[in-house]
């Protein structure tokens, strides 16, 4: 399927159209609602069913380059947890995403007036996710003797009596890396805790069979999943607006494919005659 050299003009035209498809909708009003899929609803309902004070663990494993797709999910889930007075334990096993996740957590906590150490704890980063996930199955203190701000875990009120995954209501990893497999194999595979994941659109189809085999209880896929969750939480924001950009660009690409085939058929007929 190699292209020909004369293809340069068409390629640049395609690029220009895509750029416009993303830029123009940014200045239009937010679109109407999005269809909610069962795998996203099950995450929302599971968290909605928790009692106040239970701990939700959110391993946010993504870096700024994936923030566009991942941050809206983190914000929507944090908004729901703080609204239900749940306590939140956050980690970030991606080295260049640590400060981003920390600023998002602080921003949402300040918005809801939540107190660090009592309502939420941020453990930060340690390398080699496989080992860390396995070690946290024994005790959070093994890989994380101190939290992100270097306070020993035993001095943090919220961490009293919180040893490992057994003391956490559920784990939702908001994860743009293939580290989700580590959570499935080394995490719930060895230590049996309810696990759901929010992944990029590209990784999501990978995890449908884990949903079917019960290793995951929910799956939030890409920006669309985030838009559904924002809608469920009742706070439509960046994700919902992003869906407008998605609609325009998807229709454009489908049109380009059809156009490409029209050109192909016309050329083939011309070559044959």
């Amino acid at each position, binding site marked *: *399927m*190699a*292209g020909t*050299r004369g293809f340069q003009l068409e*390629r640049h035209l395609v690029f220009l159209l895509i750029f416009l498809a993303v830029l123009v909708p940014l200045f239009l009003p937010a679109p109407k609602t999005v269809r909610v899929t069962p795998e996203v609803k099950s995450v929302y309902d599971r968290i909605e069913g928790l009692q106040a004070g239970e701990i939700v663990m959110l391993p946010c494993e993504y870096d700024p*380059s994936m923030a566009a797709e991942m941050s809206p999910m983190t914000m929507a889930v944090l908004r729901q947890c703080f609204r239900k007075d749940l306590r939140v334990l956050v980690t970030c096993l991606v080295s260049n995403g640590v400060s981003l996740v920390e600023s998002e957590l602080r921003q949402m906590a300040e918005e809801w007036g939540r107190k660090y150490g009592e309502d939420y704890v941020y453990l930060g980063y340690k390398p080699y996710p496989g080992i860390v996930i396995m070690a946290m199955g*024994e005790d959070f203190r093994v890989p994380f003797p101190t939290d992100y701000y270097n306070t020993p875990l035993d001095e943090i009120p919220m961490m009293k009596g919180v*040893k*490992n995954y*057994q003391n956490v209501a559920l784990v939702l990893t908001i994860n743009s890396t*293939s580290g989700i497999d580590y959570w499935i194999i080394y995490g719930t*595979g060895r230590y*049996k805790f309810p696990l759901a994941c929010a992944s990029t659109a*590209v*990784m999501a*189809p*990978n995890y449908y069979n884990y949903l079917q085999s019960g290793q995951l209880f929910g799956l939030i896929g890409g920006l669309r999943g985030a838009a559904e969750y924002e809608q469920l939480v009742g706070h439509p924001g960046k994700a919902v607006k992003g869906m407008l950009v998605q609609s325009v660009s998807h229709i454009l690409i489908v049109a380009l494919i059809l156009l490409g085939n029209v050109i192909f058929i016309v050329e083939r007929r011309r070559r044959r005659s």
Partner: protein
Amino acid sequence: MHRHRRGRGLPLVAALALLPLLLLQASAALAENAAEDPPAPRPPLDLKAVDTPNDRGESVDLEWRPSPDEADPAAGALLYLIERAQAQAGPFERIADAPAGTTAYTDNSVRDEETYYYRVSTTGTGGGTSAPSAVAGPVRSTGQWFDLRKLATLILTFLFCLTVMVLIRAARRGKTFYVRPIPGLSAVDEAIGRATEMGKPILFIPGISVASEVATLAAFTLLGRVAKKTAEYQTPVLVPCADPIVMTIAQEIVKSSYLDAGRPELYRQEDVYFVTQDQFSYTAAVNGVMLRERPATNFYIGKFYAESLVLAETGNVAGSIQIAGTDEITQIPFFVAACDYTLIGEELYASSAYLSQEPPLLGTLKAQDFGKAVGAILIVLGVIMAAFGQTWFVDFFRVQ
């Protein structure tokens, strides 16, 4: 007791209407006093404490049948208090509590050398605490030397390795194996020949992952074959690496291949170089190489993530013939769309056997086919057994 708000200046009718309410209020208060000390719930039954099986040790599993009072509304929701001691008579100290409805708890704060005794008591919401259950123990935690849950994996791994070795020995004794054509690999010779005609280098990208990744191992084996051919054709092969260990091993491979082809003097260590470990900085650099060096052929072999399409599309713009192979299933569609040839899934692992046509390696391919045949038979057999409810067969393959 909630305070009952009174309306101010109520007319008589309203006062009369309140009478039944007041009566109700009074009777509730009476009931409240009578139940000053709610009946203490009875303890759970049949408490059992055993060493956690198939584990690393330092862990004891407790199991009990729920207290008969769990469903009894008077005693209210129950909480199980788990206590532990190092002697039958105690002293017992509380180590954990479990909400009503749970009937098991894993205590992983034990040490292997010690002996422990457990007992569980229950508390109702009224505050009353039951007498403790019968003491379970003595129990001592130990680590197991074999994980029974991985028995299926052990058997299949052993059979698979045995098949591979048997077929390799058969191949060494002259048995030949048929291999179906794989378009991506039969194009390798032509692709390298094209590079020689055009006097352009070949670009071999061994993926962006570490050396211990299986896909990178496959990249190493194919790099060995490709480097041997480029030595024979006297065409340079550029190998930008995203991991220092991969770079060291790749240098060793290309040097050995040039030695093997009898042209050690052509080997330039500078052509097998380290760029950076960051996924997209590496991609930016390799994009630059593609458009400036204009390699005749690009190989994408190994572990690739999202950067696959950026590289493949740039290679296409540069007019190179592109052959790709990865085990990252989500990236195969992009290589299929953007490259000339794509090794789909297992074809990546057949590459070195296919190119070398060495009997032992072809024997391994045959073993892989046996594996697939056994896999298909297991699936069909399992489906039949499971459909008739014989789940023991299927559960044997269930990996916790």
